[in-house]
């Protein structure tokens, strides 16, 4: 398999095709399309590695990321999107709320640049 994450995170490689998205809107749309079981499985794998993941990413900066680092970052961003579903809601979407389509997630400038 082609490597898309920094070497030391090879064990997370299988998650990449499913769990990386580069915008908040795409991450949220994916979260609410998953089952809570899927979200929990993802969370249970990546959350315990989050500190290590962040530590690795701190070797670079947002304006100077390799493709592999950006991919790792996007995995971490997905954990943050998934976290409330697992930690608070116990379901993919926020309960006692309006339909997910009511709130539009508007585009913002991407905060990180892939340079290598």
């Amino acid at each position: 398999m082609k490597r898309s994450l920094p070497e030391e995170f090879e064990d997370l490689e299988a998650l990449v095709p499913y769990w990386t998205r580069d915008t908040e809107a795409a991450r949220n749309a994916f979260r609410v399309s998953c089952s809570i079981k899927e979200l929990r499985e993802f969370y249970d794998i990546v959350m315990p590695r989050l500190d290590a993941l962040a530590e690795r990413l701190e070797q670079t900066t947002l304006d100077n990321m390799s493709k592999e680092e950006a991919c790792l970052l996007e995995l971490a961003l997905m954990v943050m999107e998934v976290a409330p579903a697992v930690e608070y809601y116990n379901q993919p979407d926020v309960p006692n709320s309006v339909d997910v389509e009511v709130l539009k997630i508007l585009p913002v400038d991407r905060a990180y640049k892939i340079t290598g």
Partner: protein
Amino acid sequence: MSSEAIHLTNDQQSYREKYPELGTGPVPVEPYMSEEYLSKECEHIFSKMWLMVGRTTRLKNVGDFFVKNVECLNKSIVVAKGKDQEVRAFYNVCRHRGTNVASGEGNCKYFTCRFHGWVYDTDGSIAHVPEEDQFYQLDKSKLNLESVHCEIWKGFIFVNFSDKPRETLREQLAEYCERFEDFPFEEMPVAGRWGATLKANWKLFQDAFQEGYHVSTVHAGTIGEYFTGKRNPNCRPYYLGLFKRNRSMSFSYNPEFAPHPSEIFAVKAGGSLSQGDAAKTYALPGINPGNDPYYSFDVNAVFPNWLCDTSAGFFFIHEFWPIDAITTRWEASLHFLPTNSPSQYISQMQSVTLLRDAFREDIATSEGSQAGLMSGALREINFSDVEIPCRHQYQVIQELIDNPL
């Protein structure tokens, strides 16, 4: 009017004594559902006052523009950066026969009307009229896009639709100008931006964000626990100040809050709404006017339809635009101090996610309230002492309708 810090667990009602002119009685439902009332608000408030329409960060380069629709006034404007770097606002209305010259947002060299191709420069001046010789007595000096008063404060762009604004922007912003003079709004990039068109009156929805009484119930599933707990079970404001038309409150965090793994990570990395004591690390000028030891964030209601909520290391804003009496177009965004650190950015996304999800809870209860009012079951509603900011908004508007500017 002045302000004071309250004892959070004191059962005595205090604000009615501090602000007796606001009264204590029920408030009629008409202001929250009547088209006639909205037309008065449009005439006396939206047509006369400075309105915040966006940030200069959306206009970085020459030719950057965005369109802003103000549906309740039947107006559409273009806000653009000209070749001289000036930010201007003008009506999105072609001088030929009235068609819009721009839509959405983007960058352009010229605005071109899609109807017959009239062309305007990014400063609004007429650049080209196709087949100009076919017109009679066309005075091109009078064909620039009609301008709208436009001023900037701390990177926020305000417009005013009256011929002659009654107040300067600084007069309208009043106490906030001084208080936030050194707050680095302009340096703080957007982390998340959201919008919705919802079935609720614009004031009714705004009120959802200027009292803490609802937090333990509406947000029981999200941010509730962070803001409540034993010290402050009903999320009373630690500080509350009502001014001529603006108002400000500060809310505390729950010192006994037990963070989840994502929150523990976010606080450690820095740049989180639920940062607890770490707020002291990111303190910014103008925040925490009550010196709350458990300070979380300030709500700053900038009359008429803008909230600019400040805190340590971040701020978030809400715009409330009436479309009709029972429909609101809402826009919100969350901004953090700039960072080049990947882990801080990951932390910011924890806040983006949770705040956005909590906003959806507010939309749900506000649409529920509006549906209840529309049923005709109620003639009036009741505000408690700690909901005095909502009463203040109602009273200030009523005053401007009774005694126009």
